[in-house]
């Protein structure tokens, strides 16, 4: 077992060559939670690509992103409508007796700002929910995942369970088991 020294955050993990063995390892860890004294939120999964066909790719799957984007669109649209109405009234042009607030043409700007609101909200929601940017380098990571390996492990495992966790990760098909600490 390879180890990386440090003292703030630690983890033990296996690197798996294929999604089937990674799924096996996850199943092993989920079954061993109570026995080895860690919780579901301590299980870490990292991969170089999404695996939609496998259970480990579906962790933390629930999201309200589409609704948040729609809300962003509504806010953008209302802001746009307010913006054009407010400025047309505040800085009135001589319009020869025609309507000062022009609904048809204001609709275009309202529409564009609706879409801009949805786009920007999607971007910021992604950044917040995916917790990026994060350049601290303190989170569990292994560059091997860029070469197709899948990382399955446990963060901050109980000291007495480390040996057993290493054995079980290896038995599930890990190419290598490592300890990580920062």
């Amino acid at each position: 077992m390879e180890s990386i020294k440090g003292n703030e955050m630690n983890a033990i993990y296996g690197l798996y060559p294929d999604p089937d063995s990674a799924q096996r390892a996850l199943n092993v860890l989920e079954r061993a939670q109570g026995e080895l004294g860690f919780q579901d939120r301590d299980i870490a999964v990292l991969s170089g690509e999404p695996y939609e066909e496998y259970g480990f790719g579906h962790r933390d799957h629930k999201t309200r992103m589409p609704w948040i984007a729609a809300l962003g669109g509504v806010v953008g649209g209302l802001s746009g409508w307010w913006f054009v109405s407010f400025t047309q009234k505040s800085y009135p042009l001589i319009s020869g007796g025609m309507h000062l607030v022009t609904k048809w043409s204001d609709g275009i700007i309202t529409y564009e700002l609706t879409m801009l609101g949805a786009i920007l909200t999607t971007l910021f929601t992604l950044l917040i929910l995916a917790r990026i940017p994060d350049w601290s380098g303190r989170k569990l990571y292994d560059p091997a995942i860029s070469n197709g390996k899948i990382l399955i492990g446990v963060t901050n495992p109980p000291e007495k369970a480390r040996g057993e966790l290493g054995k079980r990760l290896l038995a599930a098909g890990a190419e290598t088991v490592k300890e990580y600490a920062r």
Partner: protein
Amino acid sequence: MDKTPEQINQDLLRPLYHASWRFYVALVILGSLVAAAFFAWGYQIYNGIGVSGLDRPVFWAFYITNFVFWIGISHAGTLISAILRVSNATWRRPVTRCAEAITVFALSISAMFPLIHLGRPWLFFWLIPYPSERGIWPQFRSPLLWDFFAINTYLIGSVTFLLLPSFPDFALIRDRASGWRKKVYGIASLGWRGTPKQWHRLEMAMRIMAVAIIPVAVSVHTIVSWDFAMAPVPGWHSTIFGPYFVAGAIFSGIAALIIAMAMLRKLLHLEEYLKPIHFDYLGKLLLVMSLLWFYFVFAERLTTWYGNFPSEMAVFWVTQSGRFSKLFWTMIFCNFIIPVPILAIKNLRTKIGWTVVASIPVIVGMWLERFLIIVPSLSHKYLPYNFGTYRPSWVEITITIGTFAGMALLYLLFSRVFPIISIWELKLGLQKKVEAAPALASQEPATEQP
């Protein structure tokens, strides 16, 4: 092709590390042309807009032609990529980033033309809707102001659409690089790790963006068409200008994408990733758009001819058989007569060289189309005493050539910084085994073979 993830990484990251002498030669040539364009623009700024060929009654010509043309080319990317994503077309994977990059660069180039056309670019802020004591702005009734909002929304959306799926690829480069590259790509990747939550949120964001960006792309070129259609100028005041412009934009955009992909395939040795089948599919789209474009041109001209308004007919005849007829028939030849037979014959369409042969005239033809919408109408507006002519000066020609060189230069530099094919999406395609039709099996993108 049964490539391992490591081999895919090596193939697609190779252009970031190694450049042949051809790259540097292209860099010098394209850079010189861009420098010449900037010199011409500087000359115009110093001496005034009078050094261009613009004169009464033709005050919109090459610059606005280029503006509309490049907006159209920008539809190559984000719109096509978004449509392919929404329709879950599996063959899109090697194509999307090539396409999205075209949008960002073409849109940036097009956005320069209102500034160039201003003559006094230091007053560009007059385009922006800010409160003014002059009583001129904000003029929300003006299509030119609609342009400001539409183009900026599309540019922000397109840049976001290009960057979001790039984070995982930047992380990949970060993991393999050393020295300054590791630092730069480490920052650019935003600390991407690849947790299931990150992957899921990224894919969800891409889906939302794809849905949002399609109506924005349509609105941009519709609004550009309204720059013309809202004016009671013969040949412009038409209700079909919106869809006509959008169709033309997608048409020229696909042609640009085919040419760009063929060049990248050759220069970056991406033969195993950009397959004949990708060109075949894009060729089919180009064929459909060519037919649709011709339908719009026919409908537009037929109703003009049938209506027989003198002011409209003056523009009609000057393009049909008058001074601009050579350009008009060249446009028909380039946009319809050359590409349709080539793309309709399967044996030709499935060969990359022939799809490129069909695409190059489309670029020429669509530029001519934009020119023919603008100049004949302005030079034959209502009363004959007001008729005029237009001849571009060396300044306008140099700037126009420079923008084509600028587009190629930006693309060249982009391919040295970004993986031109989205690596993680390509690998995702390896997972998703698709059933290929037996007839196409031999050409199916290798990464998506069952």
